[in-house]
């Protein structure tokens, strides 16, 4: 009983939980900044720059605006970060899952909303007009991303469900297991439009260029963050980085889960005994996942950031509800007809 509790505590605090999110998330956003700099022919900040930013912000004074609600102002960033850490617990690392349930895809869909909600509530609590503008834009961005995201997840669930004979499979663990046995979903022709749509959703969900109208620092002073300073601002920046990790690792698990099967076969081929084999599998899983996340960050966030300018909010909405949703819908229809 106590052992069980310690195990779950370790899950939450160390491995798929807080510490893992903290390190990999900030590292990913550092790599992103460096890549963008190199694409713009700059030297760029060191890869550890987000760590410096975070610790510096921890050492700054926290000013609470007179118009703000103190409790909400200080608690909102923590709620957002906690939501992301819990989200990471539900996303498997190939063969390893901290928490798995029958319908974790739906739980993930809800958990993805919590960071956006927390930033809206926190920003709204400051009473700043910049935050008001940012809040309304963030709401529209979240709404635009939601439809294609749901369609993509439905397409994947239908595809796996049809193949395993359960109708709709809402378990992410099952989806990864199916891919480990039958090869990645990215290799299936009908799933390619959904994968492309998901790649387009990543910059929108993480609020990076060209979909960062909500946090436009040049026009509305980073919107909802305008009044934040010190450690709460650092926590928001951290959540932003962790969200990159969540979205990219979700992509890996939905469309590239088959790589986990390759890792398992590799460990089997080495012919190790029980405990050592398990440890080696998890280690390789984490390393491969991180490398894939780096590649996805480069493709979906850094490259797009370097070549595009910020879109207006109505353009974002239109883009997501037409182009991206149509791509996802194509996959859904194909999956429905068993292709």
């Amino acid at each position, binding site marked *: 009983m106590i052992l069980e509790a310690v195990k779950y505590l370790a899950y939450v605090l160390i491995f798929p939980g807080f510490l893992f999110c903290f390190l990999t998330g900030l590292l990913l956003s550092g790599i992103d900044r460096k890549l963008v700099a190199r694409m713009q022919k700059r030297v760029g900040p060191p890869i550890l720059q987000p760590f410096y930013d975070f610790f510096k912000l921890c050492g700054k004074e926290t000013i609470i605006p007179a118009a703000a609600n103190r409790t909400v102002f200080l608690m909102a960033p923590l709620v957002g970060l906690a939501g992301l850490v819990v989200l990471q617990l539900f996303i498997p690392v190939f063969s390893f899952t901290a928490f798995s349930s029958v319908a974790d895809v739906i739980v993930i869909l809800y958990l993805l909303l919590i960071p956006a909600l927390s930033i809206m509530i926190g920003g709204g609590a400051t009473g700043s007009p910049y935050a008001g503008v940012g809040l309304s834009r963030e709401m529209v961005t979240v709404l635009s991303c939601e439809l294609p995201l749901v369609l993509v997840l439905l397409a994947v669930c239908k595809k796996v469900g049809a193949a395993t004979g359960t109708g709709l499979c809402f378990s992410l663990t099952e989806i990864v297991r199916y891919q480990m046995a039958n090869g990645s979903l990215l290799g299936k022709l009908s799933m390619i439009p959904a994968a492309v749509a998901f790649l387009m959703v990543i910059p929108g969900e993480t609020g990076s260029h060209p979909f960062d109208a909500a946090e436009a620092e040049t026009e509305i002073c980073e919107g909802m*963050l305008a009044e934040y300073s010190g450690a709460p601002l650092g926590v928001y920046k951290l959540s932003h980085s962790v969200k990159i990790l969540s979205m990219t690792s979700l992509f890996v698990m939905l469309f590239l889960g088959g790589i986990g099967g390759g890792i398992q076969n590799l460990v089997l081929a080495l012919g190790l005994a029980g405990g050592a084999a398990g440890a080696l599998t998890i280690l390789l899983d984490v390393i491969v996942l991180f490398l894939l996340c780096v590649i996805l960050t480069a493709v979906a966030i850094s490259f797009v950031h370097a070549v595009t300018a910020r879109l207006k909010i109505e353009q974002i909405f239109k883009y997501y509800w037409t182009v991206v949703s149509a791509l996802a819908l194509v996959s859904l229809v194909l999956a429905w007809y068993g292709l």
Partner: protein
Amino acid sequence: MFKKLIEESTGKSPWLFHINAGSCNGCDIELVSVLTPRYDAERLGFKLAGSPRHADIVVVTGPITAQSLPRVLRSIEQVPEPRCIVTMGSCPQSGNVFRGSYSICGPLSKYVHVDVDVAGCTPKPEAVIDGLALATQILQEKRRAMK
């Protein structure tokens, strides 16, 4: 250990907030050239912040006109501690060619403690980077003195 980490980081991630106090736009453009690819101050961790609450270093340009003075002071007050104030160009230091005008309230050092002055009309980007690097060191010392 945590305190040391914060101290180290303070020197490596100074965010700038730029206030134009009636400047002729010459210094403003020169500051932009410091941050863009040719001189790329981001490699030292510098970043232009949109809100004074995110900033560590306040860069003031222009001769502090009577209209801008209360706004400049109010913006500076909103920067959380530890903070550094850097004046850029000759205007905020001496008034430059606008000296003696009825609409000028400068120099800035009459109203707030100025940490670094970068003189010139306009200063070269190299001089600006040098001044900002000096301000970063002062920032680190201020952080050390806190608590």
